[in-house]
């Protein structure tokens, strides 16, 4: 690549940057789009009357500190369905622990953007959120057992864990207007509260040492 090509390339990139950085023209003076489809095609429809408490989606997830596999349902809300709250039940088989455990998770997700591509696909480039989970079994506690001499002999709870995550999603919109509206595959990197405490206190411990990978699938129902 010679110098003039390089200058042209820089100029082109600058133009691109300015285009994205400058305020976009309003809908009035923008040429009428051929189709009404926008980049973010998510629309919050929601249920009516007695159907309101019905979950809007079901999910299954592998790993992520919520068990070997976890299953659950959730509700999306906000104008563009940017917020989701899920309740999941996970299973940790005896093969992976000292006995079989059930893990109950409450998960809050935020999905700020959705980018449509092709006819039926959309990418959600960032999902992030927080989840709280509770593991069953007498080896864990929320409040320390009475045998300990002080109320705060250990300063943490082993039963309740908080996780923070970021990830991405890929959605396929189905043709039919039936029960199942779209299917989303997602992956996440999560860290738990106790590992974060360790990472803050140690230079030798980085985010790659504490982040864990998980994958899941979401089925959007009705709305």
């Amino acid at each position, binding site marked *: 690549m010679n110098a003039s090509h390089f200058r042209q390339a820089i100029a082109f990139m600058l133009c691109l940057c300015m285009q994205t950085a400058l305020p976009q023209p309003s809908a009035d003076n923008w040429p009428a789009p051929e189709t009404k489809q926008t980049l973010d095609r998510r629309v919050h429809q929601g249920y009516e009357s007695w159907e309101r408490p019905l979950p809007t989606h079901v999910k299954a997830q*592998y*790993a*992520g*500190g*919520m*068990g*070997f596999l976890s299953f659950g349902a959730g509700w999306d809300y906000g104008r563009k369905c940017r917020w989701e709250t899920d309740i999941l039940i*996970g299973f*940790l088989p005896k093969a*992976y*622990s*000292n006995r079989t*455990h059930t*893990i109950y998770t409450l998960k809050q997700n935020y999905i700020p953007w959705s980018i449509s591509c092709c006819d039926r696909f959309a990418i959600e480039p960032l999902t992030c959120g927080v989840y709280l989970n509770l*593991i069953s079994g007498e*080896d*864990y506690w929320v409040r320390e*057992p009475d*045998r*300990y*001499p002080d109320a705060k002999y*250990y300063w*943490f709870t*082993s039963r309740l*864990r908080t996780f923070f995550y970021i990830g991405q999603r890929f959605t396929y919109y189905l043709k039919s207007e039936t029960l199942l509206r779209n299917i989303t595959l997602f992956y996440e*990197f999560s860290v*738990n509260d*106790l*590992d974060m*405490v*360790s990472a803050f*206190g*140690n*230079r*030798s*411990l980085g985010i790659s*040492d*504490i*982040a*864990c*990978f*998980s994958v899941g699938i979401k089925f959007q129902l009705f709305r």
Partner: protein
Amino acid sequence: MMKRPLFLLFAAVTACKVEYHPYDTRVHGERNINEKNIARIEAATEGKQTIRFAVISDTQQWYDETEKAVEALNDCDGLDFVIHTGDLADFGMRSEFERQRDILNKLHVPYVTILGNHDCLATGETIFRMIFGSPDYAFTAGEVRFICLNTNALEFDHSESVPNFHFIEQELANFPPNAKKTIVAMHAKPFSEQFDNNVAKVFQYAIRQFPDLQCCLNGHGHKFTIDDLFEDGVLYYQCDNIEKRTYLLFTVDEKGYAYECIAF
């Protein structure tokens, strides 16, 4: 053309850790450390009159300091092995034990670990058993028999015998003929809140039956102290936690033993 990004994605995903739960017991990497290292210690010190070992303790959550300790111990001349007197984990999570093991594996000399009270939390004891081995064990270095015991009675709430007198009795009965002296190592010393203090004097009586008991080693207190707990001449050397950046260096020879508290 598509192969490369796909391969990179695959490599990125496989390099990531997958965790079913922070307290799951899917141990990755080396297991049975104590058993393997005891074989190394016994082979390397066989027939030696003089042995030199270091004691470190309570490394929980202090990964930076543990790394520094390993570097310092690797620079220590004539060291035969290292004893960790417990509390590798703070919360009992699998990842903590694995991280500590991976740091301690950088030691040039073999090491053994003792079960601490924090190591017992949640599934911690199960994970300790998988990675390091039984909480009660003994080995011979040169002419010295080391008796390593679980003394965290409070964690077991009378569901197991802690300290395990059956094990002590077996060790007394099967004391190896090549050993002449004894050192007892534990995490929590007698009269600490973790110890079953109803049997503290019985425990002391039992360990004094071992041939030529030199001293006892312990951790848990996070502070270097030397105590004659039972006023019987048997000294308990309590090691600093690793945050204080010290280790104890013991030399045992035919005359007796000497210790130093070394800062790094």
